[in-house]
């Protein structure tokens, strides 16, 4: 029977990141506040996907499907924002 220790450690790390993200919101980082918050969210999501959703031990086909899902999201965000961010009023 495998140990639950990795799950406990990941949960601990997620709570540390939660404390960091709330504290960071009260510090004035100028334009960096939102990018920092998103970076922390991305780290939390990666921990959940890799450890809790067992993608770390999944076969390559699952890896491709997971990456493709987020790749499509990337296309949607990049193409749409390249329009909105470069519009002249």
């Amino acid at each position: 029977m495998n140990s639950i220790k990795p799950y406990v450690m990941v949960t601990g790390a997620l709570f540390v990141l939660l404390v960091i993200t709330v504290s960071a919101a009260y510090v004035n980082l100028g334009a960096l506040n939102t990018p920092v918050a998103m970076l922390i969210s991305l780290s939390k999501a990666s921990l959940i996907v890799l450890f809790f959703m067992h993608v770390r031990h999944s076969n390559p086909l699952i890896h491709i499907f997971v990456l493709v899902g987020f790749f499509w999201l990337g296309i949607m965000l990049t193409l749409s924002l390249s329009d909105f961010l470069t519009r002249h009023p």
Partner: protein
Amino acid sequence: MSAESPVAHQFEDATQQREAATLGMWVFLATEVLFFGAMFLGYTVYRLKYPEVFRLASEHTIIVIGTINTGILLLSSFTMVLAVRAAEYKRRLALITFLCITALFGIAFLVLKGFEYTQEIHEGLFPGSHFQFTEADPYTARMFFYLYFLMTGVHALHVTIGVIMLGIFALRAMLTLKLERLSTAVDLLGLYWHFVDIVWVFLFPLIYLVDRHS
């Protein structure tokens, strides 16, 4: 998977059957990523256009409830992982216990969210005919609350579906004689539950933590 596990005739063995089920769940989750992604895109476009109004509007959300709810969902993901593990090792009592604890965390999340919604609706922040906002242009502030109620509402709907499924699975775990039939299904429910947790991980800073320092 044990040898007595039922394998449908289109699969070679139980491992292949389990992999096909997991793959199918990930395809569904990819559509969910794009479904929520469109709302996140809408949020990003309006936030970039009206950063100051979004900051003022965000201050009206209750950060204590948001933070506690994030903690609750993270803990519920931990208990969900333990439920998946219990199903894998065919430990019935542990499986039922962890499914119920996860469902209770989900209910706690929904109760706190409901409490927050009540406060906000009472303050006149629901973007309906009684909407009122004095600190900034109300038509723009309305957009934040429109996105807020839509995104958290759709997320809460996902949590509700998850809680119902957890309840059904806890019942199945009590009644079924062959626990190994449940193992793959619990695994897939786990993937769904963790996905809902991930959506909240991104919603939390975008809704509650918009430049709180100023």
